[in-house]
Each structure stands twice: as structure tokens, then as C-alpha cells.
């Protein structure tokens, strides 16, 4: 499997995701970090949009990045049904591109939140959570200012009905997100957006290794999803 990680000016998480994929068994040569000028992603089997603050969150988080060539390439790639994962700012970018519904506001308390939070796995039927157990609680790091996921009532109902909610904050909602949403997916489970950062929970030194199973899900489950959703 070949993985592409798109790095925009201001993106921060690309190296952590690269490291996480290597620990999950990817070969060094099969994980590439590409920049915002990338026009072609069809040769990759999984694409990541990392966290950070692309373009300093100007206009809206993810808004300036969505008009880059790489973002257009991501839209074309997504249409083929292959796995696409957005973490933090990457999730924000997926909503700006309309690949996932909803949007983001500043955290309700207006505080930038940073720390380990308890999240619950709501769905294991995605390319990024298939090695996790539904109902399982994990501790994952979050670090964001615009983490308040918001969507209209109709969208929230639809997400609930179709089991598109992937992660929720379970003991404390740090940003006031609607329905305690910490991550969602498209109906097929091939496009996933989450605010917590599993790539920062790969080493006991950082307080949690709960991130490992997310990246193992890529290796094990992503191919199955790709075959099932091939267009």
C-alpha cells in the first residue's frame, strides 16, 4: 500500500502521521509527504490530510487550503472510493471541500484545548477504525481552537441514522461540538474525519498508545474497503 500525506503551508502533523504509518508496518518508501502543488493522487492507496493550521486558519480553518491544486486532487481521488482520512485541520478541510458534512466554529469556551481526552468508538465500520471495538473508550490527545463541530438538525439526524458518527467525546466535551462529535465518516466509511490525534498516541512516553489501532486499521481494513467500494 502506498500512502500520501498532504502538507500545506502551516500543516503540522505530517511527520507524526508518517512515523505512525511506519510503526504500523508501512515501508519507508511507501509513505510520501506531498505539498499543496500536488496534482495527481491516483497512484496512492490511502491519503491523509494532517492536523495543524494550514494558512494560519485564515478566512476559515481549511478554507485557504481548499483552493490549492492538492485539494482538487483530493476531491478527484475521493471520487474513486479509496481511503481518505482527515485529522484535525484535515477534518476541517474535508468539510470545506464538502467531502464530509458540517463545519467548525471556535471552541465554545473560546479556550484553545490541549490534552488527553476520553473518546468513545461509535463505529468500527470505517477504513480508520476497523480494528477498534464499538463502545470502547480510548484516551487521545487533542489540540485545537476551532474544534466545535457544527451541523444543522437534518444533517445530525442523518449522521446518527446512517451510523456515520465515528468518535464521540465520552467524559468531557472540550469544545461544545454538536452531539459530542469527535469524528465522522461518509456513508461508505471510506472518508473519515476526526479531531483527536491518534498519531500523537503511539508512544507510552506521551501518555497513551491508543493511537496504534487506528493506523493498524489502515493496513488491515483499508484494502477491504477499497475492494468493496471500487468504482
Amino acid at each position: 500500500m502506498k500512502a500520501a500525506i498532504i502538507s500545506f503551508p502551516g500543516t503540522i502533523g505530517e511527520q507524526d502521521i508518517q512515523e505512525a504509518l511506519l510503526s504500523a508496518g508501512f515501508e519507508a518508501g511507501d509513505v510520501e509527504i506531498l505539498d499543496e502543488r500536488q496534482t495527481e493522487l491516483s497512484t496512492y492507496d490511502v491519503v491523509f490530510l494532517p492536523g495543524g493550521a494550514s494558512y494560519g486558519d485564515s478566512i476559515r480553518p481549511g478554507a485557504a487550503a481548499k483552493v490549492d491544486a492538492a485539494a482538487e486532487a483530493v476531491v478527484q481521488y475521493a471520487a474513486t472510493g479509496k481511503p481518505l482520512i482527515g485529522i484535525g485541520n484535515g477534518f476541517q478541510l474535508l468539510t470545506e471541500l464538502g467531502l464530509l458534512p458540517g463545519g467548525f466554529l471556535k471552541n465554545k469556551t473560546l479556550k484553545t484545548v490541549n490534552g488527553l481526552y476520553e473518546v468513545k468508538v461509535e463505529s468500527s465500520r470505517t477504513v480508520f477504525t476497523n480494528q477498534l471495538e464499538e463502545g470502547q473508550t480510548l484516551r487521545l490527545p487533542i489540540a485545537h481552537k476551532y474544534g466545535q463541530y457544527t451541523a444543522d438538525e437534518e444533517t445530525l439526524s442523518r449522521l446518527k441514522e446512517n451510523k456515520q458518527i465515528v468518535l464521540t467525546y465520552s467524559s468531557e466535551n472540550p469544545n461544545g461540538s454538536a452531539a459530542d462529535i469527535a469524528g465522522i465518516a461518509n456513508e461508505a466509511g471510506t472518508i473519515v474525519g476526526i479531531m483527536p490525534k491518534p498519531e500523537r498516541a503511539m508512544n507510552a512516553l506521551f501518555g497513551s498508545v491508543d493511537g496504534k489501532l487506528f493506523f493498524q486499521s489502515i493496513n488491515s481494513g483499508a484494502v477491504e474497503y477499497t475492494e468493496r467500494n471500487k468504482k
Partner: protein
Amino acid sequence: MFKVTVFVQYLESVVNPDEEVLNEAIQKVGTEGVSPVKIGRTYTFHVQADRREEADQKVKEVAGKLLVNPSMETYSVEMEEV
């Protein structure tokens, strides 16, 4: 040539966390008779076009593709020929 101002605001249904702080702060300023304040963003620019319809089209394109997120925001436009 048209001078354009695009006013962007959150939809009614969206609660902007900054507004609560702003309105508490306005209370502290103490000026009488000031209603709650809504926060928006303003973009001003010029558009090269021969006709208003053409200018309209260009504004819609820029607003739709970048300035406004329709799932959370709404906008209005003021335009004058210069």
C-alpha cells in the same frame, strides 16, 4: 469597474462563541441602549466587468468558492459602478 463589499455572517441557527464574550464586554462599556451585537466579516474589492450581471457572476464565484461556507454562513453584497 465595480466596487464590491461582501458582508458575511453566520446563519441564524449558528451560535458564534465570540458573540457572548463581545456582548458581555459591551455591557461593561456601559453605553445605554445598545442591542446585542452580531459579528460578521467584510471583504472589499474591485471587479473588472462591463455589465452588472457579469460583475455579479464574478462575485458569486469568489464568494461561493472561498469567502463563504454556505453550511454555516450567509452573505450579502453591495456593489457600485466606479
